C-alpha cells in the first residue's frame, strides 16, 4: 500500500475536530517447502500430512491428486481449508498471540493477534513439494497515529485517552510491505471540547 501523511492518522487531523483512525492490520504469510524456520517446517509437514489424511474423505483412491482437482470434483472439499487449519493451531498458539516477522525498530515482533485465517494455496497428494499454505494474521485494533516512509506509527487503542489529554504515549511502528495490508479501518470522530471518550474506548 502507499502510505501518505494526511490520510487517516490522528496527528494530521484538523485542529479542533479531528478524526482518529482505528485499524486492524493483516499479514499474509506463505509457508511452503522452502520455509526455513523450525516451526514453519513443522507446520508445513503437519498440514501436509493432515491434508493427505483428510483428502481421503472425498477420494479414497488418491486419483484426484491435487487440492484443485478435489475441489472441482467435490465442492465440499473446500472444507479442507478449515480441516487442515487445525493442525496449524498448536503452532500459532506457541507464537504467544504475537504476529511473527513484523518487527519494531528493535527487531522484535510485538503486534498482538487473536484472529487468523488459513488457506491451502495448493497441494498434491503425491508431490510434497507442491504443498503451499497461507496464514493470515489479523492484528488486534490499533490506533494509527501517523505514517512516515514505509512505516505506520501506531499505539494501543487504550492510549487514545491519554493522547487526547496531552499526555505522552509511546507509539510503536510497523513496516509495510506487500504482505501487510489494512484489514479494517474505522474513524473515531471526536471533538476536543467534549470531555467524553468515544464509546469504543469505554
Amino acid at each position, binding site marked *: 500500500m502507499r502510505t501518505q501523511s494526511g490520510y487517516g492518522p490522528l496527528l494530521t487531523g484538523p485542529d479542533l475536530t479531528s478524526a482518529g483512525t482505528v485499524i486492524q492490520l493483516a499479514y499474509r504469510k506463505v509457508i511452503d517447502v522452502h520455509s526455513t524456520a523450525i516451526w514453519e517446517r513443522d507446520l508445513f509437514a*503437519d498440514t501436509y*500430512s*493432515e491434508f*493427505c*489424511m*483428510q483428502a*481421503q*474423505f472425498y477420494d*479414497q483412491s488418491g486419483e484426484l491428486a491435487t487440492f484443485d482437482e478435489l475441489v472441482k470434483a467435490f465442492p*465440499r472439499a*473446500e*472444507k479442507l*481449508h*478449515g*480441516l*487442515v*487449519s*487445525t*493442525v*496449524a*493451531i*498448536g*503452532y*500459532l*498458539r506457541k507464537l504467544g*498471540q504475537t504476529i511473527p516477522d513484523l518487527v519494531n525498530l528493535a527487531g522484535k515482533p510485538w503486534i498482538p*493477534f*487473536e*484472529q*487468523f*485465517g*488459513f*488457506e491451502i494455496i495448493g497441494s498434491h497428494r503425491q508431490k510434497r513439494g507442491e504443498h503451499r499454505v497461507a496464514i*493470515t494474521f*489479523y492484528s488486534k485494533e490499533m490506533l494509527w497515529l501517523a505514517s512516515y516512509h514505509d512505516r505506520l506509527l501506531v499505539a494501543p487503542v487504550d492510549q487514545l485517552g491519554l493522547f487526547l489529554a496531552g499526555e505522552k504515549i509511546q507509539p510503536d511502528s510497523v513496516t509495510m510491505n506487500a504482505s501487510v495490508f489494512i484489514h479494517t479501518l474505522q474513524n473515531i470522530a471526536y471533538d476536543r471540547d467534549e470531555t467524553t471518550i468515544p464509546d469504543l474506548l469505554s
Partner: protein
Amino acid sequence: MKRIEFLKRAGLGLITTSALIACTKEDLTGGTSSETTNSEGSTNGSSASNCDVTNSETAGPFPTKNPSDLQIQDIRSDRTGVQMDVTLTIKNANNSCAALSDAIVDIWHCDKDGYYSEYGGSGMQSVNLTNVHFLRGRQVTDSEGQVRFTTIFPGWYSGRAVHIHVHIYNSSGKSLLVTQIAFPKTVCDHIYSTATQYYTKGLADTTNERDNIFNDGYENELASISGSIDDGYVLTHTIVVKA
C-alpha cells in the same frame, strides 16, 4: 455379509432394536434426572463369528479438524450439556476381530443446540485462535483397541437423527472407515425431555428409521448407552474395520 442377512442372524440385536422403535414419546415424558436409562446397542464385533465390517457412512459436511498436537480426550471445550464418557473399541475383521491397536480415531458431533464447531473457514475467513473448535477429538487406540473421550450428549439438528461422526485411520493415516454412531431413541428422548436446562429444542425430529444415513439399517452402528442425567452417561461401541 449384507445388512439384511446380518439383521436376520443378529436376533438379539433385532429384538432390542424393535423394542426401541416401539417406544413412543408418551412412554418417555415425566422422567427424572436421577432416573437411570440403559440401552444395549450393537453386539457386532463381539466374536470372530460376529464380525461384520461396520457400515460405512458419509463423512457428512463436518469432518473433524484436529491437529496432532491437540489430541485431546476431553473434547467439551466450552460446550455444556449432560456429560457423556465415550469408549470406542476398534476391531479388525482381517484378524479374527482382534483388537486393533495404534489406529487413529477422529470423532466429532454437534453441541446441545445442534451446532458444529466452526470451520476456520476458507481463505480469508478469520477465526479466533483461542476458541476455534469444540466437540472434535482424535485419539489413538491402545492395546485393547480402545479410545476414550469425555464429551457431552449431542444435541440434534433438523433432518438428521442423533449421531456422532467417526473416521478411523491406520497408524499411517490411511483411511480405514468413515462411519457414524447411532443413538437409541429411548435415551435421546429421556434426555431431551428432562435435561431441559441444556437441551431446549424438545425431541429430535428425525428417527433412525427415517434418517437418510441410517435408514438402510443401523443395527451395527447403534451404541450402548447407560447412565442418568445426574451422573452422566457412558457410551460404549465397537467398530469393525479391515486393517
